[in-house]
């Protein structure tokens, strides 16, 4: 068997078309590694800058609270001088599967003037022209590129022997071509999988030292291997049918296009049509109407400029706080509707995605990498919840007319959120079942093969 595998390996390595495909794969992997490293670096730098701003804001605020000479008319404004920078934990494998990492915000600044709808207003400066084209990451190579390379190496697995008439000879001499087919699949699969595994090791060696990164990388590699094994099984099954190499190639390419391009596109259209998110414009208009309705009297947004008097400044920030609460109350139903619709959309998208192994693998890879939609939404929800607690904390001082003291800073709510990191067990199980089923089906067909 080993000699047969070595022979097949030599045959593949002598085929210029196969070498061309492997070169494309190698080039894509190199680009994916570089691009993944750049994304990871940018994520780290963004968080470091946010951390620095948070430290500066904390130091400045502590100095302010500790200042014994701060006059009461200035000290009463302290809740409105308070800033907190919220930072999402670094995704463990953003350099493997970028997912939503280039799109979703991972830091934001909250203050007493921040509202839910303006919480992430200043994120999203990335060039949309690049975002719409997407980038290359290892996840893309595994889900989109590698299956097609594998198809290129496997499409004539046995069908080519049928075309040339050698198949009859093989069946006559060996009885069943199972060992031959297995010996042909293994080196071809290895030629696709090993460079991917190598790229994983390179990323691990070059990437940041994060707890559980290695563990996540192994899960990621397991999903990638299962998905490619599924395609190998698919190639074997198609070759076990009574068809020629051209039809096998056509069928495999059509199947790949269906599962990787067509079904995801169709699902996306169905999901958007079934659960269109409520209008963001409507949300904006509602917030503005609520703000105007809450400020029948003039609200001064510059209390420090308008007056130097303690009482009038306190009255001013009390009015600001009152307006903010009314706006929050007025927009809460719309926000809740929005969140519910998005959650329903995500549930429906996940349910539909089970019909496409490409989407199952993509989701599993992104979930493992910490760059999936659920993680991004988790950070948004946690930030909104923290904003509520933060404003309630500052608003308490405003309502009581109390001056914030140094000791009060310790009671300030701290943002501590980390995403739930569960291995994508359901997706892995589905891939195992599908792969095993297809492999058994094709091996059975090959074992019973009888050529007329």
């Amino acid at each position: 068997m080993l000699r047969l595998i070595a022979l097949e390996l030599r045959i593949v390595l002598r085929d210029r078309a196969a070498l061309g495909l492997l070169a494309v794969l190698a080039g894509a992997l190199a680009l994916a590694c570089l691009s993944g490293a750049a994304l990871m670096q940018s994520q780290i730098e963004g968080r470091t800058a946010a951390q620095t701003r948070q430290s500066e804001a904390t130091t400045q605020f502590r100095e302010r609270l500790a200042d014994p000479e701060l006059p009461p008319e200035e000290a009463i404004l302290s809740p409105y001088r308070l800033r907190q920078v919220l930072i999402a934990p670094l995704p463990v494998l953003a350099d493997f599967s970028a997912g939503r990492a280039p799109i979703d915000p991972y830091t934001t600044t909250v203050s007493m003037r921040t509202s839910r709808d303006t919480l992430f207003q200043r994120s999203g400066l990335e060039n949309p022209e690049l975002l719409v084209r997407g980038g290359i990451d290892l996840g893309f190579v595994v889900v989109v590129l590698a299956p097609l390379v594998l198809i290129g190496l496997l499409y004539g697995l046995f069908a080519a022997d049928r075309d040339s008439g050698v198949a009859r000879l093989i069946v006559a001499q060996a009885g069943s071509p199972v060992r031959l087919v297995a010996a042909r699949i293994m080196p071809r699969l290895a030629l696709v999988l090993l460079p991917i595994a190598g790229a994983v090791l390179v990323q691990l060696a070059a990437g940041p030292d994060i707890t559980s990164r290695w563990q996540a990388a192994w899960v990621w590699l397991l999903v990638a291997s299962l998905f490619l094994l599924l395609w190998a099984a698919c190639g074997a099954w198609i070759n076990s049918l009574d068809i020629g190499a051209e039809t096998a190639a056509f069928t495999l390419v059509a199947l790949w296009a269906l599962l990787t391009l067509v079904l995801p596109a169709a699902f996306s259209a169905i999901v958007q049509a079934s659960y269109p998110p409520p209008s963001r414009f409507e949300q904006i208009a509602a917030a503005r109407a609520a703000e105007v309705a809450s400020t029948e009297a003039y609200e001064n947004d510059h209390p420090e400029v308008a007056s130097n008097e303690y009482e009038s400044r306190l009255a001013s920030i009390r009015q600001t706080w009152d307006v903010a609460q009314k706006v929050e109350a007025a927009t809460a139903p719309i926000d809740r509707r929005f969140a519910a619709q998005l959650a329903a959309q995500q549930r429906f998208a996940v349910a539909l995605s089970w019909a496409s192994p490409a989407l199952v693998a993509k989701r599993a890879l992104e979930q493992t990498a910490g760059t999936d939609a659920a993680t991004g939404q988790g950070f948004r929800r946690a930030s909104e919840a923290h904003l509520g607690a933060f404003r309630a904390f500052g608003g308490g001082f405003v309502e009581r007319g109390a001056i914030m003291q140094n000791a009060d800073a310790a009671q300030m709510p701290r943002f501590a959120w980390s995403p739930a990191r569960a291995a994508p067990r359901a997706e892995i199980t589905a891939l195992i079942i599908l792969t095993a089923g297809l492999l058994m089906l094709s091996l059975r067909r090959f074992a019973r093969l009888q050529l007329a």
Partner: protein
Amino acid sequence: MSILAAIIAKDVRELRRDRRVVVMALLVLALGLTALATSWVRISAHEADRAATIAADRATWEGQGARNPHSAAHFSKWAFKPLTAEAVLDPGIAAYAGSAVWMEAHNRNPAVARPIDDQTVILPSGDFSLAWVLQVLMPLLVAVIAAGSVARERERGTLRLMLASGVSPSALVRAKLASVGAVTLVLGGVISVVGAAAAAGAGPVDPARLALWLLAYAVFLAIIAAVAVAVSLRARSSGQALMVLAGLWLFAIILTPRAAVSVAEYAAPAPTSEQFWADVAAAKAAYPSPFADGMEAFGAKVMAQYGVTRLEDLPVSFGGLQLEEDERLGNLVFDAKFGALFGVYERQRQALRWASLASPLPALQNISMALSGTDMPHQIAFQQQAERRRRAVVTQLNTDLIQNGAGEDFDYLAGPKLWAEVEEFAFAPPSLGATLAGLWREALILLGWLAVAVIVALRSARHLSGSEQ
């Protein structure tokens, strides 16, 4: 019937009988129509939503009652970007770009409400639209159609027969190009014409833009057809031709545009959002604010200008003048920082353009998005116009405060007359001339690709005469 016409008729008949090709063609057509329908619904909903929001916002703005003009400037207005009817054909960057800008005092805000933020599904390969069907699926379909055009004749032995019956290799290549081209034209034409009709139904369209858009896709598909026939001419078997074409498709359609993104990000890295806003804040903090450390000098300058010795004696609102000066200084910062950011975007676009040397797709994408009004230059034009409107609104409100708020400053209240005078934002998209001026390189690249593809296909005739005769 000439031999050429007979070959074309035979090829078309064979393709019509090939159930695999028919099923795939019907699938692509169905997807194209679905994409059109979803885009049409999305754009109609966006426009209806935008009109309703503008009306509601106008009513809120005009009904805000007595208020200090600066308080109103903070409340201010929103600019909403319209989606053109041509976006039905190619939504371009619409999903990834914000379509609403808050035009408030003191701050230049980025465009928000990106549809992608509310979209849980990100496709493995591009957004679903008619343009995506024509850019991604149609080339694959053309590859499938063309793969066997010559290679299958070779496998069957009919190629030798054709050549022996007096058909010259170059005439055969022309016939094959014509038959693949005719089928491609019918398939692409049906989708495109339905698309054009849908765009016309979605709103007013510029016929010249539409015609150029169709022409660009015709050139692109002609390139694909010529390359596919050339591969089929040189392949040993139709299976091999199909795999080579699938590999080329993977490289040119799927890989190159994405690789170009990686190269563009490397060539011109954009600042992180964190870094950008920190820089803006630092630059704003660096100038002498007329409300803080620059107040004394500014006050002296204003008093000298009005010939008074005390601020209380000014015939205008000093607070209003402070606000306007603060805006002027802030705008200098915004001009510098956003100018630099847009400069990075432009350098990234240039890097992307280089990818057109490896694949005609990036050039086509730029042309398609530009003619649909959904590319980055249109987005930047929207943001720039919104910023100009913001400055005009804030200055209008500050001017009212300056002229009528003497002695009252932040206690002065303006009324509905002023709010009614504030004009609504109206986006004026770049003209067709301006759009085309930015596309001449892409057009040249696409035509260059077409010329090379046709030459390669015709030169393959020599290969045919050498190997078969």
